[in-house]
């Protein structure tokens, strides 16, 4: 009875949220859990085939949603916390929204994105069959402490679920450490693709023995063909292997020899795609026609999302140094004349500490195709200062995103990039949609 009440309250809150125009991805679950703490544990039993959890610093929303749409393309009914609310409340919301008012749930698969720091708690309620770990980068340090702490939380969480099948980024030593005892599936990119950036390599020290690792080649951050000269820990045999990469649009590469042509931007998306491939293998689903399975996927907002003004405005979300470095290198592969707008906030969900701005290679924003640079967001002064010390003075500093976009639209550039961190994303999307209505592509 408590369970039914919890579901009803959650559903009513969702409905009320819709009426006032809120997305309600987390709060219905919060109240439902107060009424029935066992709600998730109970509903979890109705998943017919497998529960697949995706964790990792970057790419988890994309990977999780891509996996969900690939399974849906196969005709399955899939439960998914699609909006990226990835703590216990968000998971509870996804479950109760999928449940019927009689408390039953019909689903073949559950695809759940879980915040690394909350895996330990969530795994008390949900016992996943498969866990994908995309990568571990520095993220929101003031919330989690250091990367070692995150690693330890994940180890504890994994230990709570005997028999869990891991799908791991084989290029990331910090991910590979989790697969040392279990028979994991590893995915990786087995050739040098990008010019070697001098960015933060936080996992440069062997997670097993602490000695300095070496790389035969590396992609970015600590991802690459790594080995430890001291203890022998090294990049494992890769099960899902990418080669023959071309980053032009559409991207082309092969997965285990099969050619793929995919209309995404950004090298990092290859990792998201092959993580999905690995997860399908882990649950015993065929990967035949994989390219077609991806075709139905609509990227979430802010993943190099294009807005069709008279010139394209491309919105990109990054949450940490590795993400920003990747976004900047994607902007740099576009050789059109461009305006760049950068918004930095420091609300709780962004991380209150903006020190990481100094770990991003912002100096690379300045290339021959940069027209104007605008800084905005709550910490506009910090990001402006960061640019000043990289010898780039922002052309405009403003609190008003709308003004920033209007200015950029009026220049003679060919494209506008808007790079934002987390809490700046939804308001920026709102501004862009509103402007699109007002001005269209005139």
């Amino acid at each position, binding site marked *: 009875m408590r369970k039914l009440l919890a579901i009803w309250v959650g559903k009513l809150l969702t409905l009320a949220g819709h009426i006032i125009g809120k997305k309600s991805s987390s709060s219905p679950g919060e109240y439902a859990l107060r009424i029935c703490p066992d709600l998730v544990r109970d509903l979890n039993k109705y998943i017919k085939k497998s529960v697949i959890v995706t964790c990792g610093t970057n790419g988890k929303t994309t990977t999780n949603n891509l996996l969900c749409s690939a399974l849906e393309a196969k005709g399955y009914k899939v439960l998914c916390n699609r909006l990226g609310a990835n703590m216990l409340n968000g998971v509870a919301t996804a479950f109760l929204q999928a449940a019927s008012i009689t408390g039953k749930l019909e689903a073949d698969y559950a695809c759940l994105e879980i915040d690394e720091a909350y895996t330990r708690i969530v795994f008390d309620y949900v016992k996943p069959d498969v866990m994908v770990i995309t990568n571990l980068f520095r993220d929101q340090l*003031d919330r989690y402490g250091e990367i070692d702490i995150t690693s330890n939380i994940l180890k504890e969480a994994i230990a709570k679920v005997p028999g869990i099948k891991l799908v791991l980024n084989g290029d990331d030593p910090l991910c590979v450490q989790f697969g040392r005892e279990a028979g994991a599936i590893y995915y990786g990119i087995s050739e040098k693709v990008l010019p070697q950036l001098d960015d933060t390599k936080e996992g440069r020290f062997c997670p097993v023995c*602490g000695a300095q690792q070496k790389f035969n080649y590396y992609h970015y951050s600590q991802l690459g063909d790594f080995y430890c000269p001291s203890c022998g820990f090294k990049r494992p045999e890769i099960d899902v292997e990418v080669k023959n990469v071309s980053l032009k649009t559409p991207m082309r590469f092969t997965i285990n020899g099969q050619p793929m042509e995919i209309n995404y931007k950004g090298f990092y998306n290859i990792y998201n795609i092959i993580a999905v491939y690995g997860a399908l293998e882990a649950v015993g689903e065929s990967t035949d026609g994989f390219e077609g399975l991806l075709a139905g996927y609509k990227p979430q907002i802010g993943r190099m999302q294009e807005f069709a003004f008279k010139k394209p405005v491309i919105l990109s979300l990054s949450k940490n140094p590795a993400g920003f470095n990747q976004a900047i290198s994607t902007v740099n592969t576009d050789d059109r004349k461009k305006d760049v707008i950068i918004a930095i906030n420091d609300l709780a969900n962004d991380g209150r500490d903006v020190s990481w*701005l*100094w770990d991003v290679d912002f100096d690379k924003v300045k290339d021959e195709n940069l027209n104007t640079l605008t800084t905005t967001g709550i910490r506009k002064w910090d990001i402006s*200062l960061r640019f000043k010390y990289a010898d780039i003075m922002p052309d405009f500093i403003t609190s008003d995103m709308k003004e920033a976009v209007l200015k950029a639209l009026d220049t003679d550039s060919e494209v506008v990039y808007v790079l934002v961190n987390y809490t700046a994303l939804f308001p920026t999307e709102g501004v862009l949609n509103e402007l699109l209505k007002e001005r269209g592509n005139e």
Partner: protein
Amino acid sequence: MDIKIMHLFPDLLNLYGDKGNIECMRKRLNWRGIGCEVVPFTTEDSGFELSDVDIVFLGGGSDREQKIVCRSLLEHKAELKDFVENGGSLVAVCGGYQLLGKYYKLKDETIEGLDILDIYTEQGKGRLIGNIVLEADFLKESDKLIVGFENHGGRTYINGHKPLGKVIYGNGNSDKCGCEGVMYKNVVATYLHGPLLPKNPVLCDYILTNALKKKYSDFTELVPLDDRLEKTANEYIVNRFK
């Protein structure tokens, strides 16, 4: 004129954008036509030559990384102590600050420090995390507010040392103790991590001036720069907590 900065273990101690401090010192020298060379010293380097070094920078890292650094630095304890006692400039941030003391007592072990400052650190309950504002009385009245971000589990007890500043907002050396960091000779040691200097250009110039005065006996003062952006960023944080 030129200044040589030795960045200790940039490969290990680089947790919170520490390179912002190095960049800030370098740029503020260059903008005034003063040369600046930054030399890294890493775990792979042998020899430890401080004779031509003007400023030593020691940043912060995770506990694991700090232990590796400590093992390596203890071998050069005497050289570092001499450097400091002879008026060399040393900037130590967060984990680097803790290392300058006698010891850092963790839950189940004690890390021996460099014993350059008469201070010690003990792991406390929970971490002290957040924006912080200090009042530093050695800076001139209009610029004496230092802003930054602290994130540390250790509580540092500074005995008779003079702190870097009085805490206006935040925690500082330990829970609500009212003081933050240590100033000793030309050492500036603080928990304010990462890009401390860009938002506190007056503190940066204070450090640079000390180093220049030691190296060039006829040096008097740095020419002022246009610091409007730096000051706006500083005031923005101060005003949040008014």
